[in-house]
């Protein structure tokens, strides 16, 4: 089990990206999942469904911190619970629960953007994954680690490249290859544009 860390350490880890970010994600989840799940199951969710919401909430929290949306006005725990509550309300709305009930519950939810990719339809997810699947394994690894904000040095060490410059060249080469695949696939471009907008 991961050990308890201060909010400051966790925020630093998330902003640093790479291994530190992944470790912070695990620590936050391990520290708060039980309480958050019990919070949601008291409000009508089944346990499995509640765990799913908490996982989405942790990813949301990560993205908000990385994008500078979290101002540090509350503890991470309070913030995570507020996001969980917000995602729970969104889910109830989608299920057609009455607005009057939702309004009563709404008071401490955080106005947070949900990472829509998590609620994206299966066909769209498949399209995105399929286009990535055209790349070679090494490209997928480099791009995946790069987008998780791993430093070039970390990527070189993890994947066995000679130095940072080799990784930089490889990343550019893979990005170009992917760009050409995106150029040839208007359907995927539409899905991405919808997400950006």
């Amino acid at each position, binding site marked *: 089990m991961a050990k308890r860390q201060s909010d400051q350490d966790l925020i630093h880890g998330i902003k640093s990206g790479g291994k530190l970010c992944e470790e912070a*994600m695990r620590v936050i989840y*391990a520290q708060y999942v039980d309480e958050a799940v019990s919070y949601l199951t008291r409000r009508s969710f089944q346990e499995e469904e509640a765990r799913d919401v908490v996982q989405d909430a942790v990813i949301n929290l990560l993205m908000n911190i990385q994008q500078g949306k979290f101002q540090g006005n509350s503890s991470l725990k309070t913030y995570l619970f507020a996001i969980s509550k917000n995602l729970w309300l969104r889910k109830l709305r989608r299920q057609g629960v009455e607005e009057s009930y939702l309004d009563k519950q709404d008071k401490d939810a955080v106005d947070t953007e949900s990472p829509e990719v998590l609620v994206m339809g299966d066909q769209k997810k498949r399209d995105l994954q399929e286009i990535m699947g055209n790349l070679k394994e090494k490209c997928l690894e480099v791009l*995946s680690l790069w987008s998780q904000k791993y430093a070039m040095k970390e990527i070189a060490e993890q994947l066995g490249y000679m130095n940072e410059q080799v990784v930089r060249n490889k990343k550019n080469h893979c990005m170009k290859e992917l760009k050409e695949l995106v150029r040839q696939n208007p359907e995927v471009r539409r899905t*991405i544009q919808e997400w*950006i907008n």
Partner: protein
Amino acid sequence: MNEHVFEQIEAYLAGSMTEAQKSAFEQQMNSDSSLAEEVKLQQETHTLVNLTTTLSYKDKLKAFDKELTADLVEEAPKVIPFWKNARVWLAAATILIAVSALLFSQLRYGPNAYSQSFSVYQDVTGLRSNDTLTTFRTAMSAYNRAQYDIAIRYLNQHLESKKEDSEAWFYLGNSYLAQEEYKKGLQALKKVDPSSKYHEAASWYQALAYGFNKQEEEAINILENIKSEPTHGYQQKADKLLKEIQ
């Protein structure tokens, strides 16, 4: 589009241009619609990579959740009065067997160069589309939780109907190596097609499998081949291992 323009766009999207460079670049975009279109396309490509990474975060959290649940099962006996619960004895025996197996495996591995170079191939991307066959998804889920015996069972089941699936052969080979079944690991890795994206990694693991199996000459041949290919993803590792064993 030339390399310079591509790198300029990367710098612009990464926010690493100076204010003056950024302003000049934006002016250029305003007067050149084809450049503006390239920037848009490159930004969409970045977004695609980030979206798929977010999907993989979700997979990682799901896998981690399973690990945590398993931890809780193992921790449970600590809070239940053990003399009142027969399951505690079973759990204690399971833990004892697991710890003994771990110690035994460490003794068997020994501090040789091959075992120091070996770590199971990480399924870094963690992406599996929903239409992937259930047996393969289950296998990979077990693999990512280091439950290699279960992964082997499901991968073999999957390969009965998908004999050409290099990805499955590759992970089967790795699972066998993790279970110290080197001959079976080698047989599986040899089935990875040379045109597959796993081919480079499969060569590296074949070399290790030969090494574990005391077939040093075969191991060295493969490592030399890897070393001689400048673009091979495992060139540096092969070079390092060769220095250690020769």
